[in-house]
């Protein structure tokens, strides 16, 4: 096996705080600040629309009401999780597990197909980071202006711009924090109570928590989150294959790179020994993770396609065909045939379809009724005056539906089984305890223990019906 040569692919220190020319490294690596250049183009349009859509959904959902409550309300103290018409309870957390597993498989599927598009287009870390960079550009100016601004000593102008920028960031972070908490406590009361210091202490804590970390993550840490913290970034490479769409620089077409006179036509440049890359460095300047895509695919790349838009705009200016940097596959780059439909992708897709279908069925088939039967713990059985055997059970009945119900209890399993007529009314989302005594003629009991079945049937809705098996104990010495 040939040893893979190690190359230092640290980007040139254009516009970075250079650590100086010393021969020794400071303790632990200092982070280079990445100045991200703004770029327009097809993929940035797509990304920006996706970001807007996601932001709007995130910020507006808590304000949507469903009846008299918020449509989405994860009521932790009340242990109820309202999602539009449905209400879920902690007992149903397995559904959440499945939902998260489905989301994970969805991520795997899309990664096999198109690499880290999740990161570039939809990940909240990217969405907020791009939003913060956009603000930075509006307040401090373009990339070059920002580099200059950071280099110059503190002037009134600089202080003012920096102040406004951080204030704007903090404002957005505050809105993010309040919105996030608004999913757990009704936002309409929250926005009234927060300023008047009437809200719950924990609400302040979590608003502050998300404020601080939104500000830090999107304002200061940015690509560090993707490179050093995010677990997905670490294992995404195992999902890539030679047919995965990745952002690639077409080395065959671009090299040898170099600047040339703009007057040269495409063919003249070729004849002069130039590849299509004019080494303008734009693809490096627009990259939010600060890599040079021309060094090949790197784990920092979040597939945001900013370099594609940047390069395409340069190719347009030069009058060269687009696509020197483009979404393509490893096979396609090498001139081989690319297969979109391959076993790995189809396998993920099949798993995804099966799981989504099973999940939809489970959610739809949910029995909005909880029913537990507990035997009396103090006595196995009692003998009544008229010689019958009685067993006592504690029944816990939980109405998990959105409306009040009246349930009728019946019991079966032995011929002479008798039970007082039990009708229990349980308000929506509440529970009731009922202690029942079940009687049997001693002659029915041939064994020390018989299985019996309790059935609980909602009177208003015949689909709501649940059965629980219990044991009926009799005289063991017979």
């Amino acid at each position, binding site marked *: *096996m*040939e*040893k*893979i040569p*190690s*190359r*230092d692919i640290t980007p040139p220190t254009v516009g970075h705080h250079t650590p100086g020319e010393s*021969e*020794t*490294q*400071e*303790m*632990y*690596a*200092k*982070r280079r600040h990445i100045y991200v250049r703004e770029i327009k183009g097809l993929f940035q349009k797509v990304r920006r629309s996706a970001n807007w859509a996601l932001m709007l959904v995130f910020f507006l959902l808590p304000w949507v009401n469903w009846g008299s409550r918020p449509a989405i309300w994860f009521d932790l103290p009340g242990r109820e999780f309202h999602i539009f018409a449905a209400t879920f309870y902690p007992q149903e957390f397995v559904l959440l597990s499945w939902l998260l597993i489905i989301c994970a498989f969805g991520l795997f599927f899309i990664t096999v197909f198109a690499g880290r598009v999740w990161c570039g287009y939809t990940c909240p870390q990217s969405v907020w980071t791009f939003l913060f960079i956009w603000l930075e550009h509006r307040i401090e100016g373009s990339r070059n202006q920002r580099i200059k601004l950071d280099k110059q000593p503190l002037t009134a102008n600089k202080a003012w711009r920096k102040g406004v920028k951080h204030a704007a960031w903090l404002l957005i972070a505050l809105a993010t924090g309040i919105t996030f908490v608004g999913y757990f406590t009704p936002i309409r009361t929250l926005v009234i109570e927060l300023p008047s210091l009437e809200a719950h202490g924990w609400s302040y804590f979590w608003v502050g928590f998300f404020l601080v970390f939104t500000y830090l993550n999107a304002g200061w*840490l940015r690509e*560090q989150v993707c490179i*050093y913290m995010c677990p997905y970034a670490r294992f995404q490479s195992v999902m890539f294959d030679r047919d995965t769409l990745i952002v690639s620089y077409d080395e065959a077409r671009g090299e040898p790179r170099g600047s040339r006179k703009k007057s040269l036509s495409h063919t003249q440049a070729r004849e002069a020994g130039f590849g299509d890359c004019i080494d303008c460095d734009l693809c490096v300047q627009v990259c939010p993770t600060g890599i040079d895509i021309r060094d090949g695919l790197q784990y920092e790349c979040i597939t945001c396609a900013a370099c594609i838009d940047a390069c395409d705009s340069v190719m347009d200016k030069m009058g060269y065909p687009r696509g020197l940097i483009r979404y393509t596959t490893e096979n396609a780059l090498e001139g081989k045939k690319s297969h979109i439909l391959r076993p790995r992708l189809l396998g993920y897709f099949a798993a995804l379809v099966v799981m989504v279908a099973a999940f939809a069925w489970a959610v739809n088939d949910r029995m909005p009724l909880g029913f537990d039967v507990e035997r*009396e*713990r*103090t*006595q196995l059985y*009692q*003998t009544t*005056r008229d010689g019958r055997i009685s067993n*006592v059970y*504690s029944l816990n009945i939980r109405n998990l539906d959105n409306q009040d119900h009246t349930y009728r209890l019946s019991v079966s399993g032995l011929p002479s089984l008798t039970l007082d007529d039990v009708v229990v009314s349980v308000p929506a989302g509440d529970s*009731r*305890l009922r*202690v*029942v*005594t079940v009687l049997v003629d001693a002659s029915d009991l041939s064994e020390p223990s018989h299985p019996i079945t309790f059935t609980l049937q909602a009177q208003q809705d015949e689909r709501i019906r649940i059965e629980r098996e219990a044991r009926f104990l009799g005289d063991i010495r017979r």
Partner: protein
Amino acid sequence: MNNLWGDSLSSFWSAWIIVITLGTIALSVWILMSNRRTDKIPDADGNVETTGHAADGIEEYDNPLPKWWFQLFVLTVVFALGYLVLYPGLGNYAGILGWSQESQWEQEVADAQERFTPIFAQYQEVPIPELARDDDAMQVAERIYQNNCAVCHGSNAQGGYGFPNLTNDDWLYGGEPENILATLNHGRNGLMPSWQQLGENNIENLTQYVLALSSLEHDAERADSGESTYMAVCAACHAPNGTGNTALGAPNLTNDIWLYQAPGQSVADSVRQTLRNGRNGHMPAQAAYIGEERVHLVAAYVYSLRFND
């Protein structure tokens, strides 16, 4: 400070824990500091030094950590030291906050009291017969009953061997609200003396007489002989007609309800056993355990059981 080893550790073990804890932190700091790199400069060919670890020919870089990450490590050390100052962790040192498991538990109990006391106080204002008709109150009361009383009286409140049935109208000490309250608050001690000294013959006669009082099958002759003994010895508590006395907690002997009839035991055997050995019923006082407010609710619950039919 209370812990696994009793109230406090001997000074040796206390020192032992302190040394290990602080030593571990010091070791972490030393590892962190000693892993500084000072020469990670690419050579002329652009090759960077590696750790020398290789897997499948792929060598591992020896790049330094990001600085902010290193600072996070330092922060964890600061956090640990701060924690050890504030909270117990260094042997017998209790921490300046004075936190302990007990104090936290006591705080939670106090918080709960603060939350529930007003609710219970409200219920305590309501007379028991009225409270017994209040569904919400009875739900609360039933939970208190299930947690504190059901273990003896059964979750259906029908009692058992030696534990009175609370759902019928046979009351040892009376079934009025004030009787129930007195029973719950202060407990009861039911004492039936042993009448061994009367001799087996008298005991058998008395047994037959008691069976007769409840209109059960009995030996009429023996019952007749037992009557005079009953009047002389038993009537003082159980009343001449056998209907008992709620002031003393003497059971009614005429209604065929037997507190001490073990499963499978005949009434006659149970009565003989009672006469020979006596009985000693004990209802613990509940006020000390659950407080008078909750007792008031439970009393109302017990009172409400009579409406269930």
